[in-house]
């Protein structure tokens, strides 16, 4: 940025004054800011975010229950144990399922709703807010609400089943249906967020582009297909990014619904980490899971940014 002020006469008069006062834009002033303003953030971040990651890598070489100092060095055995656990692969598969549902169900739904609700009509804003509301509810509360919805004795699903004269299923208690039930809750909770991303993007589109397409004789569908959607590509890539990162972090929602069960059938990576590492204080084993998750997240974030979001 050019700074023309620096050459005005007023400046040349003022500068010596400032120097005399000893508080000009000098190195001293900058130095004071640097040593006062920066350290709190760097310290907190290093202490609670960066160091623990490094320590996870270190602890993952030990068989340790968290008390005293880690002494029982077992090398890469913890990683081997993790990779030999069937539940780990189930959790990984479930994370894959969540991503698949996010891309194949949630994203088209969010996009369709955004296209419908970006137009002005009575009730559009109210509907946007309604659809966004599940996103701000705590995942714990959402999970509890749906554990009621799915409850085989008192729940909504049970009541629908009974009205058809069928024996109500216990969806969350069966290895066949538990993950499916969790997936539905995920869509319920997060589609509104992605919809809002798309609405924000749609509103920032230059209307003259769509008008130009109309004038050139494009139908509604054509202008949607060839003008609007391509303009939304950056937002779609962003939405996919959030869906994948979100899936890798998913934990709170699973706990009230199934705790990862039955028989590990609905674990995500983080709930697997919680059930096998944290709740049993197996620090080394849990840290190994954490490191694997970390590597997956970072690799994914970097490749995705490199391949799909280079221009942003």
């Amino acid at each position: 940025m050019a700074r023309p002020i620096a050459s005005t006469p007023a400046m040349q008069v003022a500068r010596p004054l400032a120097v005399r006062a000893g508080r000009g834009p000098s190195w001293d002033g900058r130095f004071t800011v640097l040593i006062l303003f920066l350290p709190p953030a760097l310290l907190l971040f290093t202490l609670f975010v960066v160091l623990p990651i490094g320590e996870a890598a270190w602890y993952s070489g030990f068989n340790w229950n968290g008390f005293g100092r880690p002494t029982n060095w077992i090398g890469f055995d913890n990683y081997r144990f993790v990779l030999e656990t069937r539940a780990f692969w189930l959790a990984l598969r479930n994370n894959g399922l969540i991503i698949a549902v996010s891309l194949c169900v949630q994203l088209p739904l969010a996009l369709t709703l955004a296209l419908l609700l970006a137009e002005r009509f009575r009730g559009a804003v109210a509907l946007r807010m309604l659809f966004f509301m599940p996103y701000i509810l705590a995942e714990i509360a959402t999970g509890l609400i749906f554990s009621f919805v799915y409850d085989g004795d008192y729940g909504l699903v049970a009541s629908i089943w009974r009205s058809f004269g069928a024996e109500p299923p216990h969806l969350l208690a069966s290895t066949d249906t538990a993950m499916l039930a969790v997936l539905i809750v995920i869509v319920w909770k997060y589609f509104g967020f992605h919809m809002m991303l798309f609405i924000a993007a749609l509103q920032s589109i230059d209307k003259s582009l769509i008008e130009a397409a109309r004038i050139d004789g494009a139908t509604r569908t054509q202008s949607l297909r060839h003008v609007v959607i391509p303009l939304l590509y950056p937002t779609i890539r962003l939405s996919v990014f959030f869906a994948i990162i979100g899936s890798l972090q998913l934990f709170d929602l699973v706990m009230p619904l199934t705790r990862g069960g039955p028989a590990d059938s609905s674990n995500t990576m983080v709930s697997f980490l919680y059930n096998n590492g944290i709740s049993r204080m197996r620090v080394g084993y849990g840290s190994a899971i954490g490191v694997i998750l970390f590597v997956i997240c970072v690799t994914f974030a970097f490749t995705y940014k490199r391949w799909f979001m280079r221009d942003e």
Partner: protein
Amino acid sequence: MNRAETTRELFDPAVLFKAAFLTLIAIFVLVPLLATFLGGFKSLGELRVNPFGLPQHWEWQNYADILFSGRYWQLLRNSLIISTLTVVLTLIVASMAAFTFAHVRFFGSSMLLSYLTLGLLFPAATAVLPLFIKVRDLGLLDTYFGVALPQVAFSLAMSVLLLRRFFKDIPYELLEAALVDGCSYAKFFRYVTLPLSRPILATVGTITFVNSWNAYLLPLVMLNTDALYPWPLGIMVYQGEYSSEWHLILAFITLTILPTIILFLLAQKHIVAGLTSGAVKG
């Protein structure tokens, strides 16, 4: 749009289809929430036969019992303390760092900034075991700060990025002129930058508050005493105690999500803008 046009549009099949689709999704979103709210007014027996409809007999007792118990208020109080600590600390620490990154040129500035943004790449859960040991060794286990400080640390990356972007738009000439007039960086920060940045501070505050208010994993790992539990932990304990007395659990859920919903209805524009802008610009 006049009435004739509106009526004609109502019978357009495309419009009808659109309305039907939106209604369907609205029902999908609303029914679980309404059933939860109304379920709190039913007796357990009625819930079993009539989980959808209005209660035949309104049981105010379920809600009253919870509202007059100390437990509900204690949970909200704990959540409020932890969230407020987190928001205040995040705003102070992040805005100071963002100010430095926006206005002070120094060697390694961009390197340090990318160091901080590393925090965006992985979830807090990955290192939660070492984090637990660290918090324990610092003697902060089972304290509000033991939850709040890691939360601040994890919200820093996003907050610093959002704040810095905004601070950078404050004209450099303003800072230079102020410095020439003998104003210090700190005073400029306090009396110019911060007052000019209320919108972005509100946005960052909102994101941090919602995240902290809803957080489950960190308090779960860091707190052992029931008396310190924030509401997501408390409600899980409550559910464990009243395992199948769904009418009570539903009333409890309704009352605990009520503050969030009221806040959302009061400040919806702000919250939506905050949460989505945080995402977009992150």
